[in-house]
């Protein structure tokens, strides 16, 4: 791994462990510095009581390059993809912060908070209209999808 990404990730991880994660977010795994998972809850929302697992994968180019972030779908562990208009059933998330809106000054905690707030502000549990078509053809890594953003309100 590159020096810059190792340095930044080590620092972010230390901050998360020392200062703790934001409310509703728990670090599950970070043994592999390139792949972290969090458990995420959205209190006071229509997802109250549901627990989701969010996976981050980092390339050598992090933080210049955005991390690959998706929800884990794992039936044995009981993790499902949140039913949300911007989140596909395979766990892929359509959010500008993960593509064009990424900036190297952002970090993992900021991404977690953005995704948590996507859930908190959601009013109705629906899948994106093109869910089935997308999921059938989606690449394994969501960063390989070229996202379009039509709606900032959810």
């Amino acid at each position, binding site marked *: 791994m590159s020096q810059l990404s190792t340095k930044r990730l080590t620092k972010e991880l230390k901050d998360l462990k020392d200062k703790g994660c934001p409310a509703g977010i728990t670090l599950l795994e970070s043994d592999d510095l390139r792949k972290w998972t969090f458990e995420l809850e959205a209190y006071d929302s229509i997802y109250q009581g549901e627990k989701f697992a969010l996976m981050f994968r980092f390339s050598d180019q992090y933080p210049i390059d955005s991390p690959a972030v998706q929800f884990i779908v794992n039936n044995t562990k009981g993790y499902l993809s949140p039913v949300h208009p911007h989140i596909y059933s395979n766990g892929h998330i359509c959010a500008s912060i993960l593509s064009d809106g990424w900036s190297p000054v952002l970090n993992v905690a900021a991404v977690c908070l953005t995704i948590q707030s996507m859930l908190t502000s959601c009013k109705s549990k629906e899948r994106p209209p093109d869910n089935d078509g997308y999921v059938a053809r989606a690449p394994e890594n969501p960063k390989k999808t070229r996202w*379009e953003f039509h709606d900032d309100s959810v």
Partner: protein
Amino acid sequence: MTSEAQSTELNDTEILELTEKIKEEESRGSPLIGVLEEMPALLKEYENGNEIYKNKINNLITEGYNHFRRIRGDGNCFYRAITYAFIELVSKDSQAATSAKERLENVGIPLLSELGFDSDIMLDFYQPLLSILDNVKDPSISIGDYLKVTLNDDEEVSNSIVVFMRYLTSATIRKNADDFIPFLFAYEGDLQLDDEGMPDIKKFCETYVEAFGKEADHLQMTALGRVLDLGLKVCYLDASERPTVDWHTLNENSKTITLLYRPGHVDLVYK
């Protein structure tokens, strides 16, 4: 909300993004900073092409511009070009390298803090530049070899400095918003206006300056030259029917570098 799988027709922004992506992919593999080449190598690009370019290049040679240096065309070319030429220029005497470093520490870095950029995060991006400015003062090293190892061979060092230069440019534009806003109205991309009909300069900077891989225009060039205390002479080579290239001077300064600008790309040219 759709994914690529469904898109059928592309709008202008998408075409632009796709073009940028193709350019970025094509340029991979070419050096970040090319070796110094003689002008006939540039002429060769137009061998079977436009006479206008050939005439303009020949006239440049007559004016004494005998060498050029290719920069990778991945949307970061301006930032890589100015970094290279800036270090090359100040490495000619150790006092200039010291002043350049002091200028960054006393003006550039405080400006980033003033605009609210996290100093710890910025440190990771500017540390490589500061250490290069220290190392070029060592008379025993060969500057050309050293800059090749750092700014060409080490993509991480080069990219970190690009990111730093982008934030420095952004901070300069935002700090001097009154000077730069008039130019924003002429900007070709989508421009967001605030409630009073003024361009949203922060949004502009995030989209067109800070974003890695986004090409620079004369606005970004002016701002970065200003904060680095560096003059920029831009040699504008295009297909317009004139016998010579157009020259633009951005920031009059005793320390000046020369950029070879062809629409959508920046290289370096030398006397």
